[in-house]
């Protein structure tokens, strides 16, 4: 009964009642993080794919949420379960909680959703899928991936993330995306250039093959050795350790006692631990060796400190090279492009029948290639080894001197930049004219040595100050009737007025004087008389002109009056006041002569033909002392001083004794020197000029090469004046008094500035140290002379790039056999011409200047000159070693001459005119024209190389780049990968433009930088504590890959077939319209009615 009532009650309640209460509150089944939810859903997908009958997903529901996965679960589920924690961590790292809402707002913005509506998304996904499938079909590349994939922990944790980390994490990446992306998509300002660049990249990569220069060395190996060899003088406070890779790209096992230690084996005795086909170390039985990962570092492998390498150190300069304010690196490339030659249609042939048509360069008119060729030809020097060794010696043992000299030289060059008025006519063959003279100097070992020794003399240090004054002022300097010098440095040249008359600098007038005197013969006049001093009785008469004396070349004679005569032993001839009428004693120095109460005899010698009687009379009267007295000019004796000659030439009234024997001197054109060149020569008596210049002139004199000197002065005179100067004529080269109007005078302000600089002091102060250097048993002067001589001497067999041995001077005169100097001169001439005509070409100079500033400048630190660049010495050392090694290799192979003359220049030409280079430069140029893209890109690069504010990112960048250099030798892996990428970029395929189009629009929608920041986090370590240096994207890729591989699941290394499967599976995921990405797109596309 009671039960019946209850049932009735229940019945009534139910009838009255009611359906189960409805609570619309959602009860989350996955209350975890975003990463947990995502991985759970991934797992659920896999679970259903593995068992289509489990439509409720109950079998693996708990396991998919982190519970224990049954051992007999499908491999895909085992794989994702094993990776669950890592994946969750990575995803949560990429999309932390505070990003949920911004990400959702971004993904659901109209701009993004429209990508689904207009099929952009579906097309992009399909394209990506096709690309991945194509990649997966490339078994060579997949095998390469497999071999590379086993190389884990090859970089230390702090840098393992790779360059993508800093690049994507830079605050500047957004600006790049804002500006560069629009420019390279359809309709973009740089679209055409971008397409050309991509085509070039595709061509290049598709045609990748092992590099070999014929000697067994590859370019990559050479570069690796050059850049990644440790130098003891480099290094930073905090070392950046890297494992040394062998040519196979594998960590190099450290040798023990010179051999590969156990358990590794080296059957082929190449000092590399043997590996199997997959790249794993094996033992003698071919079984895998349980080798540790390179990092954490162990004694198993070889390591190096990147900061001790040239690359690591030079990377420190990137910040300067990439400084947007200067854009040195990029502008250098732009300038190089402008110097490569006029653009012409070109075709480059690759492997098989592949070709690429591109806008190349007319290499027949390429100043840059000319320069490169010219410098390469310097390697022809048979003494190049000495030169390289000398360079090493300078940099290693005399670095402060080298630093100072280089700094001074650069300073000189910089001064030139400031003196734009300094410009010699382009067709003026000044350097062509000087070259033979330089050759003469260098052909003379003694002269060269003496010149270099002369620099040691302290008085020489003042020389340039004298020259400076002479170039600056135009004052008259005369000899007063009483023989006194008149005139002061007071009036500077008015350079707004023509360089005529006394508006020429003293220097210009002196050159004129020397030139006019060079070749002028001075003789005693016909009927010359010698009179007794007291009575005026004529002692002797010389009937004919020149009977008494004859000076063959007044310029040379004057030079000789400045220097001292020497005996066969090189000792000075110390004479008494009797001079030529007395005896001499040898003296080492002028001071030694004085100590003997004598004086050093001047070399100039009138060689008077007195006759025996007169000679005897003079002798009795005191010899030369008598002659000085008779002439009333001190020093006017058989071996006259320069001062005496000055008075003989310019003192008025002219002493009678002089008039008795000679007429007023004339220049080689018959003009009176005292008139035409009045007011000039006595200036050399000012401020000890003769003392300063004497050591230099003495060198010429001691080698009896005074003519060289005066010829050089004459050449300078020829090119010194402007065409407006009225002191010479400029129309008839064969006529008298001709100068070319080359405008050398415009250099005077510049030269003055140079003379005020440190170059001369540096040279002279360190001359003794330099001269004491010996290389390979050869003194410094010899090595320098050999190098200089090679440079300026016609070289048999030397041709220009076109194979022509002849050249022309600047004014068009033929040069039958060119010298390296000619080659360089022609190249520089062509470069200057191009630069004058092209604003882009001028960037070369500007950037080179900046590069030089960065690399070669020095400062006086305390009392020691020090290169600003820490790696200057190492760079020099590496460069000389590189050249030395290369030369040795080609000497061994017997093709050294061909290599220098043809192979190397052709390689340089191939590289510089390669479609890739041309494409890159054109693209940079177009980006520059657009403005903002270039600025953004510059700023990005600058930011990641900012070692001041972002040291960690900077180290990551340089480690990544250095490792790429190491890997560049790894042809076995790189070649197939390169070919694969090249194929993907082929113009017939649209993978890249499609993805760029999508990226552009996705970025355009990313107004809050949500996507940008997510991408940045993808390339940051997801779990810095447990997996330092492993970027989140790698973790995610590992996790997904372990699922999709041929045999799903960790931990075995991926094989080639695994990679094939992963790529294909992921590609399939992009294509499968049923339950994969296209399905998502379809559903989203259908969100609105």
């Amino acid at each position: 009964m009671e039960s019946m009532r209850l049932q009735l009650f229940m019945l009534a309640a139910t009838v009255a009642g009611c359906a189960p209460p409805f609570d619309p509150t959602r009860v989350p089944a996955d209350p975890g993080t975003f990463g947990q939810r995502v991985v759970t859903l991934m797992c659920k997908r896999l679970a259903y794919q593995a068992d289509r009958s489990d439509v409720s997903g109950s079998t693996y529901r708990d396991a998919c949420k982190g519970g224990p996965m049954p051992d007999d679960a499908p491999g895909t589920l085992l794989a994702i379960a094993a990776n669950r924690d890592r994946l969750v961590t990575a995803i949560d790292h990429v999309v932390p909680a505070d990003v949920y809402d911004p990400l959702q707002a971004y993904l659901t913005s109209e701009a993004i959703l429209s990508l689904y509506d207009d099929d952009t998304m579906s097309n992009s996904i399909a394209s990506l899928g096709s690309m991945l499938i194509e990649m997966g079909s490339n078994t060579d590349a997949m095998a390469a991936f497999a071999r590379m994939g086993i190389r884990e922990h090859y970089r230390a944790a702090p840098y393992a993330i790779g360059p993508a980390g800093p690049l994507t994490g830079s605050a500047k990446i957004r600006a790049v995306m804002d500006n560069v992306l629009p420019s390279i998509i359809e309709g973009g300002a740089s679209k055409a250039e971008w397409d050309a660049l991509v085509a070039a990249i595709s061509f290049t990569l598709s045609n990748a093959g092992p590099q070999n220069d014929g000697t067994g060395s590859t370019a990559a190996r050479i570069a690796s050795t050059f850049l990644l060899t440790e130098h003891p003088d480099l290094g930073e406070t905090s070392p950046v350790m890297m494992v040394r890779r062998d040519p196979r790209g594998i960590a190099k096992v450290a040798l023990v006692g010179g051999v590969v230690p156990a358990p590794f084996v080296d059957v082929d005795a190449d000092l590399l631990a043997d590996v199997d086909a997959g790249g794993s170390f094996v033992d003698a039985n071919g079984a895998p060796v349980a080798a540790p990962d390179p990092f954490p570092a162990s004694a198993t492998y070889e390591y190096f400190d990147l900061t001790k390498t040239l690359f690591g150190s030079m990377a420190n300069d990137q910040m300067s090279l990439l400084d947007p304010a200067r854009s040195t690196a990029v502008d250098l490339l732009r300038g190089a492009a402008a110097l490569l030659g006029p653009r012409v249609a070109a075709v480059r042939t690759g492997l098989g029948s592949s070709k690429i048509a591109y806008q190349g360069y007319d290499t027949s008119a390429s100043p840059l290639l000319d320069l490169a060729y010219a410098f390469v030809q310097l390697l022809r020097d048979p003494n190049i080894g000495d030169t390289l060794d000398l360079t090493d010696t300078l940099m290693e043992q005399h670095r402060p001197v080298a630093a100072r000299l280089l700094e001074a030289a650069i300073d000189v060059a910089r001064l030139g930049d400031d003196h734009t008025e300094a410009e010699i006519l382009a067709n003026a063959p000044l350097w062509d004219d000087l070259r033979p003279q330089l050759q003469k100097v260098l052909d003379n070992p003694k002269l060269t040595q003496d010149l270099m020794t002369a620099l040691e003399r302290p008085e020489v240090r003042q020389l340039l100050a004298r020259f400076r004054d002479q170039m600056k002022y135009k004052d008259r300097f005369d000899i007063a009737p009483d023989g006194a010098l008149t005139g002061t440095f007071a009036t500077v040249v008015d350079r707004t007025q023509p360089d005529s008359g006394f508006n020429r600098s003293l220097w210009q007038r002196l050159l004129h004087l020397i030139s006019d005197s060079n070749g002028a013969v001075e003789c005693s006049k016909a009927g010359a008389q010698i009179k007794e001093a007291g009575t005026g009785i004529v002692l002797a008469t010389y009937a004919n002109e020149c009977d008494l004396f004859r000076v063959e070349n007044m310029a040379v004679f004057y030079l000789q009056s400045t220097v001292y005569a020497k005996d066969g032993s090189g000792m000075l001839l110390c004479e008494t006041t009797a001079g030529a009428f007395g005896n001499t004693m040898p003296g080492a120095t002028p001071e030694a002569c004085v100590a003997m109460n004598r004086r050093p005899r001047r070399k100039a010698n009138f060689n008077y033909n007195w006759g025996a009687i007169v000679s005897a009379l003079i002798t009795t009267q005191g010899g030369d002392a008598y002659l000085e007295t008779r002439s009333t000019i001190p020093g006017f004796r058989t071996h006259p001083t320069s001062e005496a000659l000055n008075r003989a030439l310019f003192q008025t009234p002219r002493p009678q004794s002089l008039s008795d024997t000679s007429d007023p001197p004339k220049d080689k054109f018959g003009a009176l020197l005292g008139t035409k060149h009045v007011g000039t020569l006595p200036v050399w008596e000012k401020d000890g000029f003769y003392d300063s210049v004497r050591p230099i002139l003495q060198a010429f004199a001691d080698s009896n090469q005074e003519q060289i000197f005066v010829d050089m002065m004459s050449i300078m005179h020829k090119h010194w004046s402007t065409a407006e100067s009225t002191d010479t004529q400029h129309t008839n080269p064969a006529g008298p008094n001709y100068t070319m109007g080359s405008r050398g005078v415009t250099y005077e302000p510049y030269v003055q500035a140079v003379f005020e600089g440190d170059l001369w002091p540096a040279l002279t102060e360190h001359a003794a140290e330099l001269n004491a250097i010996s290389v390979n048993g050869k003194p410094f002067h010899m090595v320098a002379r050999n190098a200089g001589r090679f440079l300026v001497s016609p070289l048999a067999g030397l041709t220009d790039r076109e194979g022509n041995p002849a050249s022309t001077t600047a004014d068009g005169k033929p040069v039958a056999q060119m010298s390296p100097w000619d080659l360089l001169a022609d190249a520089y001439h062509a470069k200057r011409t191009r630069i004058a005509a092209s604003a882009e070409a001028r960037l070369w100079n500007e950037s080179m200047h900046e590069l030089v500033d960065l690399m070669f400048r020095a400062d006086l630190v305390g009392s020691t000159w020090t290169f600003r660049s820490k790696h200057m010495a190492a760079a020099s050392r590496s460069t000389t070693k590189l050249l030395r090694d290369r030369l040795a290799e080609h000497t061994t192979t017997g093709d050294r001459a061909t290599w220098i003359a043809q192979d190397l220049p052709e390689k340089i030409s191939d590289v510089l005119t390669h479609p890739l280079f041309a494409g890159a430069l054109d693209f940079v140029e177009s980006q520059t024209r657009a403005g903002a893209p270039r600025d953004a890109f510059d700023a990005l690069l600058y930011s990641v190389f900012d070692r001041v504010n972002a040291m960690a990112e900077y180290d990551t960048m340089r480690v990544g780049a250095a490792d790429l250099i190491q890997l560049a030798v790894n042809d076995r892996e790189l070649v197939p990968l390169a070919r694969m990428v090249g194929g993907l970029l082929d113009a017939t395929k649209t993978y890249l433009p499609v993805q760029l189009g999508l990226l552009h629009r996705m970025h355009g929608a990313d107004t809050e930088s949500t996507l940008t920041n997510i991408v940045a986090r993808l390339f940051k370590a997801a779990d810095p504590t447990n997996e330092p240096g492993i970027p989140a994207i790698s973790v995610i890729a590992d996790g997904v890959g372990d699922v999709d591989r041929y045999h799903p699941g960790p931990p075995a290394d991926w094989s080639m077939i695994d990679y094939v499967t992963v790529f294909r599976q992921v590609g399939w995921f992009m294509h499968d319209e049923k339950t994969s990405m296209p399905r998502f797109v379809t559903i989203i596309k259908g969100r609105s009615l």
Partner: protein
Amino acid sequence: MSRSAISLALVLGLTMPSYAGGMALPFRGVRDAARGGALVAGADDAEAIWLNPAGIAHVTGTTVFVTTMYVNQQVDYARIDSGGNQLASISNDHPGQPIPSLGVVVPIGNGRLVLGGGTWTPYAGLHRYAIDGAQRYGSISIAETKILYLTAAAALRVTDRLRIGVTVQDMVTALDSRVVLSGCPGQTICAPEDPEFDADARLKQTDTFAPSASFGIQFDATPRLTFGAMVQLPAKIGGATGTLQTRLPSSGFYEGAMVVGDRASLEMTLPGSVHLGVEARPSDRLRIEMALHVELWSQHDSISFTPESSIANVAGVGTYELGAQVIPRNYRNSVSPAVGGEYTLGDVTVGAGYAYETAAAPPAYVSALTVDSSKHLFGLGGTYRGKSWLVGGSLGIAKLRDLDVSLEQAKVPQLTPVRGQPEEVMINAGSYESTYLLAGLRFAKQF
């Protein structure tokens, strides 16, 4: 895609009326049940309003009546899920419900014209299942659904042998349906019946104006033989707007999503029907009728539903609009021959009858929402007549033919708001067993 899609589906399931198709038994009153549904020509009291309005012309004095019929549909359903797995059998937890009706009939003037009016509810089985039961994609509950015909009737005794009648009806419906929709987006991240992608949804819609009408005729061919016919016009539900409650799936995929808007409208057609009968009265005490009911369920080929809501903040999608959908029903006309009779002894009348009804719902479209198949119906009852009143009762049973729907046959798709699904997931495969139990009482008084 999204969880959003779910809400769309919500709506679809909710729209399925409990009374549709073969769920409404062919009985239309306690007396009708007692005669096994064979009461068209012989309908001659106030309850004839819904059996054959011509029959109220027999009423000679003002009569009021009230009836109630307890209807219980027992259902056992052993589902085969879309993966081909045989699931445990589930049963309808709903205990049945009393279905009342009442009315009044008033002769006018000389009694040739009789007017009447009343309310009536079809005898449909309601159900309620476990929320997480295997049938959830078909239905969870329609226990709270109400349907009521407000009817005004008029009959005219044209001659002593000919009577005609007509009713004007307004069908008032209060739908209250719960069903589970799947928010699994295209099987991309889930199995199609993963309960964590279930969205529990409840639709409540009241439709107060759905006009219809019926026409009846009775003709006494002889004093012992009467023919009758009645035509019921169809009724169309639509034009009203209901409310939709949704509980979004628990899966993390729907984290942060929400339903915006709770309005929805449903349209569907309830079929017309034709009823024929011939009653023989071999004696004054015995009445025997043979009837044929034809329900035009072919008019019920689909249900269309238009929600006015969306799911907002769907991950990666934002707002997912819920659009109108058409659910195919593809019902067939049902035919139900019936035979029944009454025997009167003094003040007591007893009756009994039998009917057989073909299925309106093709097996492919049978689901937990609408368990229908051909059925055998038995009824019996009795009436005690007082001086001016009567009281009666009846019992009935309808045994549906057991039905096995294979997965290949199944055509009732899982409801999902997600457009663009890769394939439909059929959710109605399995074995169905169902029996209706009826017990009714009636009371009438003539003034």
